[in-house]
């Protein structure tokens, strides 16, 4: 058999493609059941207020309406939404106890799934309308009356922390929902020793995931079986089932959650949502199957937002340009809730040191609640913010020290010989952060070479159109393949065909293709004889989901382990028959044979038939050919990479064009190169969006200013260049395939690399780029600030060369 970690498929074509190309994919809104009704939610148009009452009579009288429900109707039935057990909750307690710092805490608010007496953001659900037709549900929703008296909204996260700020949660002492403090070494001493200390305030803007398929839920109760089935456009069917079981007081075994084809997720479909619970309770209590499909306004105002961190970071260098220490205090604006708790802020802390040797570190995260939509991880999950802070401050420090920014990085990159490298504090899973593999200098140099960066970059080049050309670099690490586990079941049926069921739940990553290849390779079969089931809680008892750059690593390892175990059992029965050692047998083309001698063979389907209950092999070895693996990673495995961006900046219009982009990435051996490169390319496009275009803006009243795709700009084809991608393939020692995750990597570095390139292009003008996205308006403002000689105001010179 092919060894672990080898490439499973060279072809770009995936088995998923045919149905997607012919319009026969089945996404949430394509599903129906007999008697289906439709839900429209009435949502708050007020950011912060007391909800006095909801009038439903007029809506209820509208044609086709089955029910109109309010928070008061449902609150006793549902109680509050328990804090999510998805991901954050699993590791959170352990992490907080390990931090052992009296300053660190997390406050979690059990929020009602539907507003009862208070609204805390535009988009919060106030009423549920069930009707026999989606148009009629919306007609009736317009007739629901809502009586709200407005409270002072909390919009600016800095002001939210001031004494006297209005509170979102009246029984809290302030608006802080989380505080994390991590340190290694004595930062005060380190910075006091430094030749130069550079400081900046750096802001990663608030973004929205915006998969092209919005969220959606369908729920049906079967009164014959007593089972509730919930179809959801989710990344995490098993955690959603647990969430529903807890909230509804039902046995988990009576609930089946199915994710059909999911049209993109990127993290925004990786938490349990109130809409899933509300659809389920409507199907249960009103005994009609119901469906809700999110519209784009709802996506912008009630699906999670992400990023939105403001960092005050400082770095000290010695006289040789070596980093002595980094101190970073940052605020996360979590909006009205932070469902995954520590995940995003702690990821930022854990990835702050990146590829560099940072001997002393102090990092403090403060999460603040405001009257905005909730915040949770989105592709990158705290890492783009860390890399934006660290890689920007390195450029600032290089300039202050009179060094080339590429050379400064070279002096601080962790050498390959130092692997595995201990960073000096713990990951959020409670294990020490150890970079298990990689070659950061090689990655960096290859990216610099591919980008054609001259050894002494010439400044202020211009192109034929008079635009200034700049080059920027950003390196990163990413802890991938996080636990707690993923489940895979591999079953050979009586016809000799194999079914693989995984808890992982794809949104376009090609799981069916990759997992079929992994199982087929282990079992000596054709991939076409392997059927793959994803996103169905009835197909495998325990699962987690597809998020956090984890599925190839964690689900892939589970599939590999289960298939390898099945192979062992098959060979053991044949070895017993033939009185030969298992080690002398192999499976080739669905036949067991003595290795290298195709004369004596036994077909897998003949063997499988004899495993039916009562048959010969079943009597000896037990019935059925099935193996289940719940693969638990020991801890995360670190992928790494370097991006180099080349930009053209028009100082008249403030428009930036990315004219070249290089990615060198190390995710270990490539299982499916086309899929890996597709993940990187798509991630970079989202990173370019965050760097130049995407930002959710709110006004002083907490009203979203651009909750639509005309005013919130997603990258289009003309804004994303063809990338130059190259791979390092240092294997991970932490899983049988030797692989590291790649789902989020592309999105991590672009904001930093692009911002560095823009600042490089404008270096002689003294322009400072302190936030992303770098919109034309922001860039023109910074040009104006520079031209009146104010600079950024955050740099203090402590005796550097100039």
């Amino acid at each position, binding site marked *: 058999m092919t060894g672990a970690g080898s490439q499973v498929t060279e072809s*770009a074509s995936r088995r998923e493609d045919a149905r997607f190309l*012919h319009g026969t994919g089945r996404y949430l809104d394509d599903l129906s059941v007999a008697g289906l009704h439709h839900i429209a939610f009435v949502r708050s148009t007020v950011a912060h207020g007391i909800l006095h009452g909801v009038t439903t009579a007029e809506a209820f009288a509208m*044609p086709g309406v089955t029910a109109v429900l309010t928070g008061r109707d449902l609150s006793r039935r549902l109680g509050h939404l328990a804090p999510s057990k998805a991901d954050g909750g699993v590791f959170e307690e352990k992490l907080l106890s390990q931090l052992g710092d009296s300053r660190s805490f997390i406050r979690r608010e059990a929020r009602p799934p539907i507003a009862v007496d208070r609204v805390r953001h535009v988009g919060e659900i106030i009423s549920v309308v069930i009707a026999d037709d989606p148009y009629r549900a919306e007609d009736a929703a317009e007739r629901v009356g809502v009586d709200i008296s407005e409270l002072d909204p909390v919009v600016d996260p800095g002001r939210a922390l001031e004494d006297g700020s209005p509170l979102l949660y009246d029984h809290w002492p302030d608006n802080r929902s989380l505080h994390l403090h991590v340190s290694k070494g004595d930062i005060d001493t380190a910075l006091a020793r430094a030749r130069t200390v550079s400081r900046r305030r750096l802001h990663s803007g608030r973004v929205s995931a915006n998969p092209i398929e919005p969220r959606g839920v369908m729920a049906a109760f079967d009164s014959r079986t007593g089972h509730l089935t919930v179809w959801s456009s989710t990344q995490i069917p098993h955690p959603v089932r647990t969430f529903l079981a807890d909230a509804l007081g039902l046995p988990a075994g009576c609930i089946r959650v199915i994710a059909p084809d999911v049209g993109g997720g990127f993290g925004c479909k990786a938490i349990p949502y109130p809409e899933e619970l509300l659809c389920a309770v409507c199907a249960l209590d009103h005994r009609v199957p119901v469906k809700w499909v999110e519209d784009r306004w709802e996506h912008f105002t009630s699906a999670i937002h992400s990023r939105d961190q403001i960092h005050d970071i400082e770095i000290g260098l010695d006289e040789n340009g070596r980093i002595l220490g980094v101190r970073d205090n940052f605020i996360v604006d979590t909006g009205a809730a932070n469902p995954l708790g520590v995940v995003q802020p702690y990821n930022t802390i854990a990835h702050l040191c990146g590829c560099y040797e940072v001997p002393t570190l102090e990092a403090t995260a403060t999460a603040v609640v405001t009257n905005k939509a909730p915040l949770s991880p989105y592709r990158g999950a705290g890492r783009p913010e860390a890399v934006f802070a660290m890689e920007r401050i390195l450029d600032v420090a290089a300039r202050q020290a009179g060094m080339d920014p590429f050379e400064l990085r070279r002096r601080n990159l962790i050498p390959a010989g130092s692997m595995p490298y201990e960073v000096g504090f713990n990951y959020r899973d409670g294990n020490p952060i150890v970079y298990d593999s990689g070659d950061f200098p090689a990655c960096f140099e290859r990216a610099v070479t591919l980008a054609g960066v001259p050894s002494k970059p010439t400044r202020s080049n211009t192109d034929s159109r008079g635009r200034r050309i700049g080059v920027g670099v950003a390196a990163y690490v990413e802890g991938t393949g996080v636990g707690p586990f993923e489940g895979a079941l591999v079953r050979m049926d009586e016809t000799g065909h194999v079914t693989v069921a995984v808890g992982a739940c794809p949104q*376009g990553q090609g799981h069916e293709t990759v997992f079929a290849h992994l199982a087929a390779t282990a079992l000596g079969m054709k991939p076409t004889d392997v059927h793959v089931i994803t996103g169905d809680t009835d197909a495998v008892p325990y699962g987690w989901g597809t998020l956090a750059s984890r599925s190839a690593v964690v689900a892939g390892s589970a599939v590999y382990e289960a298939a390898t175990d099945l192979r062992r059992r098959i060979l053991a029965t044949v070895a017993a028959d033939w009185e030969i050692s298992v080690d002398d047998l192999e499976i080739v083309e669905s036949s067991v044979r003595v290795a290298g001698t195709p004369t004596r063979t036994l077909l897998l389907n003949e063997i499988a038939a004899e495993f039916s209950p009562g048959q010969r092999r079943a009597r000896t070895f037990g019935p059925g050919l099935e193996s289940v693996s719940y693969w638990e990673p020991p801890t995360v495995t670190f992928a790494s990479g370097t991006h180099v961006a080349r930009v053209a900046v028009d100082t008249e219009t403030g428009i930036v064009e990315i004219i070249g982009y290089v990615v060198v990435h190390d995710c270990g051996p490539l299982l499916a190169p086309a899929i890996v490169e597709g993940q990187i390319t798509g991630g970079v496009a989202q990173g370019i969006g965050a760097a130049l275009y995407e930002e959710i803006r709110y006004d002083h009243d907490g009203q979203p200013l651009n909750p639509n795709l005309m005013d919130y700009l997603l990258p289009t084809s003309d804004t994303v260049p063809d*990338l130059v991608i190259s791979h390092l393939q240092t294997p991970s020692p932490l899983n049988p395939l030797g692989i590291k995750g790649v789902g989020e990597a592309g999105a991590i570095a672009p904001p930093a690399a692009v911002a560095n390139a823009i600042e490089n292009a404008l270096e002689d003008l003294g322009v400072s780029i302190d936030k992303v996205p770098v919109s034309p308006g922001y860039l023109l403002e910074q040009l104006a600030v520079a031209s009146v000689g104010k600079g950024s105001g955050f740099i203090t010179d402590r005796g550097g060369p100039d």
Partner: protein
Amino acid sequence: MTAPETRSVSLQVNGRLATHRIEPRLLLVDLLRSLLGLTGTHVGCSYGVCGACTVIVDGSPARSCLLLAASVDGAEVRTVEGLADERGRNTELQQAFSDEHGLQCGFCTPGLLCSLTAFLEGDPNPTPVAIDEVIAGHLCRCTGYSGIRRAARRAAGLPLTAERTKP
């Protein structure tokens, strides 16, 4: 309660005549999806920006979320389900999307296929820039567009890497 006003519309959809009594407010995309069961046409934004709902109406690409079904009475409509031949074989464009990894989640794909099919039928020898302009009318959140551009160039018989549109 008065019954809503209805009217009859007849369309040729993927070569078959479809006649339905509908409310005047029914959108073309909902007629295709709900009444005809052609769920390959997707709704991403419902206001004409993302392009996922694009179908071919009388030979031209059109956003089916912005068209009232009643307004295209008598038209000939092609959807993603009608692109392949009768035996279900991929068109060159569909095959190129698969070969060049021009799709991931597949949600935006039908709209892109319809726009590019209509475009390539109208201009079998397009420039890369003209192809890029068609793609730039669609939002894809998964692929970063590179695979889509390669697929369209391949289907048009152009080199896979080409000088691109400048903003």
